[in-house]
């Protein structure tokens, strides 16, 4: 079982709202190993010791916003190649452009749902 688990790809969910983590985990948990962080600092500390295959990153968080976290991830040689997908309620073109500008590859829009989030993750891994 452990070898089966470790063979699965790992997704790090970063969101300051535990309910959102629970929702995404219920959608993706059957296919991927799920790690979580509820703050930017916790996320950056976690990626220093773990190696997630994908990071789902909330934009609006109190200690450090998603853009800043993404910038730091992309500036770090250890994490710069890990794909980042933003989770956001912001849907303007400017917000999307800013996200792509700091290195994100895609968006998942809130409210989070299986039809919107599962294909985005699958596409990333494929």
């Amino acid at each position: 079982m452990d070898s089966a688990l470790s063979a699965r790809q790992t997704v790090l969910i970063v969101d300051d709202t535990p309910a959102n983590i629970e929702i995404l985990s219920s959608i993706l948990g059957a296919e991927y190993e799920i790690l979580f962080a509820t703050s930017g600092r916790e996320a950056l500390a976690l990626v220093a010791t773990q190696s997630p295959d994908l990071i789902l990153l909330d934009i609006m968080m109190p200690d450090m916003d998603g853009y800043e976290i993404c910038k730091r991830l992309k500036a770090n040689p250890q994490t710069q190649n890990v794909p980042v997908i933003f989770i956001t309620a912001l849907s303007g073109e400017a917000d999307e452009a800013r996200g792509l500008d700091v290195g994100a590859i895609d968006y998942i829009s809130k409210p989070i749902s299986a039809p919107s989030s599962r294909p985005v993750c699958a596409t990333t891994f494929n």
Partner: protein
Amino acid sequence: MAGNLAATDVFAAATAVDTAIRQSEQDHLSALLDDLHASLQTVLSGIPVAPPPSPLAAPPANRTALDLPRVTQALAKLDGLLKNNNLAAKKHLAPLHDLLAFAGVAELLAQLESCVNSLDFKGAQAAVTAITQELSVALP
């Protein structure tokens, strides 16, 4: 009842009292009642007095029956998952609960489950530490 308790003296004294009452032997009745009282006291003093078991009482801790190697392995696995904020920790609660069912750490287990389910993994790690201390096990 007297027979079940092997209280033959009580049976004899009670029979004598009964006979005296039926035959209106008032003169002997007081002495016969004293005999009955004395024989009853003898029987009652021989019955061990124990409080009835409380239905709400927690099952007694039976740590000698603990499978310590498996408990240690399960706690170490859970601790590792908690340190990495890995949500697989949730799946490891049920087996641990079974392993520690009679370990006398029900309160700490409840605390651990509550912390994991609310994604308070630091609190959950503290609960794991408390359980290991309570059971005197060292995690690898």
